[in-house]
């Protein structure tokens, strides 16, 4: 805690700014719906009747997801930039931005989440084997 008399003014400003922000949350509708947030909050023992706090949690989560997605998007764009031009024209049609597991795991690694995904799933034990041996 800061007990300096000089900083009391600054803190007062913070106080006002924060209460303004919380008041503005009443009008702001986060992408994550309140009901969903309340469900998860109740699930983890969070009890508070104040809608503004629920919204704050929603906004914090939304910010996190947006950051991760933005990071993954940068990875995606960087990957596409490395492809030489002549090939890029070929891919121009499906140059649509797609959220892939590869980009997502790279982006999440920066946030301390280790996502390991399988390269592929084999449909049957014989999948991927040499066709000659499969016949036998």
């Amino acid at each position, binding site marked *: *805690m*800061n007990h300096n008399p000089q900083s009391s003014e*600054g*803190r007062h400003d*913070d*106080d006002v*700014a*924060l209460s303004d*922000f*919380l008041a*503005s*949350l009443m009008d*702001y*509708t986060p*992408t*994550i*719906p309140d*009901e*969903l*947030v*309340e*469900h*998860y*909050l109740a*699930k*983890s*023992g*969070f*009890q*508070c*009747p104040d809608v503004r*706090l629920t919204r*704050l*949690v929603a*906004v*914090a*989560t*939304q*910010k*996190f*997801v*947006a950051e*991760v*997605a*933005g990071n993954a*998007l940068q990875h995606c764009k960087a990957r596409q930039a490395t492809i030489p031009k002549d090939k890029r024209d070929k891919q121009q049609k499906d140059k*649509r*931005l*797609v*959220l*892939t*597991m590869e*980009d*997502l795991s790279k982006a*999440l690694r920066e*946030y*301390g*989440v280790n*996502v390991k*995904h399988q390269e592929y799933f084999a449909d049957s034990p014989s999948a991927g084997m040499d066709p000659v041996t499969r016949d036998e």
Partner: protein
Amino acid sequence: MNPMQKSINTKANSKPPRRTRNKKKRDPGVDVQVAETPSDFSFTIAKTAVAQICQSVGYKRSEYNALESLTNVATKYLQSIARSAATYANDSNRTDTNLFDLINGIQDLCSIQGFSGGSVMHKSSLLSSGALKEIVDFVNTSNEVPFAKPIQHKNVSGNPNPEAAIDSGILTSASQEPKVQGFHIPRWLPDFPDKFLYKNCGKVLVKERKCGEKLWEHSLDVCSGNVEGNRDILQINEIDGKEEKDAKMELTKKRSIVKFKIGEKEEKQIKMGVNMLNGVFKGRKRVSWTNNIIDDSMSQVNKDAKSCLKRKTEDGFYEDFN
């Protein structure tokens, strides 16, 4: 064979393929629409929200697995913020979480990437937290994207289909009634179950017992819930079991003196090796042991202790005390 029957048979035979065709048509639609469990339902909503956020960032499409795992991470993130905040509240002996707990929780989760003022996290003022400022900036700069569809509030809590709501009618009816909770009851305790669940429980049990005794709770019914009456019953029960038959449940005017006897046998003096008239037992208070086995074992223990003492005195440890 009757020609009519034949035609029926052919009809019957021709039916099965049609059915299968219908099934094939319906199946994919059913798979997409219905969420089987409550957690499934909330997860689907979360997935939609996350997909919307991704779209707002600039993505056009997404791999199915990628979206699913991002949703998983997002819900875990939300829950860990909530859990962290709730822990902070509980640590300071509160059940309700307030803004400060929440800011602490947000700071905890933001500390992985770091934020301005993160080095003095628990020393500086919470209201000027850098993590919170980042959120404020985010709200101010980002576009507002409301959720795609309105959600019915009841469904979120668990029952997406009406049949399940009927099954759990007890719970919903209990929650719909105005609460008559006393102030002394903590709010986090669940509501009392409906009256019909426990009121008639006693009727199922056998009322009359072998010797004409009544169950204690039935004798309470007679007294019409009078507290003083209850007290009387308690006293009567303690003094004499036969008085229970008295319908009025009043105290008998003349009460016999209550005597307590511990053990049926005659009091025995224990041969404990210690002279009972000296020292500890000088006041002539005697302890009776009805159980001989204990008696034997005690004397055995006593002997052991005695021999132990002897040995020690022989070694010279305790000579000074003697």
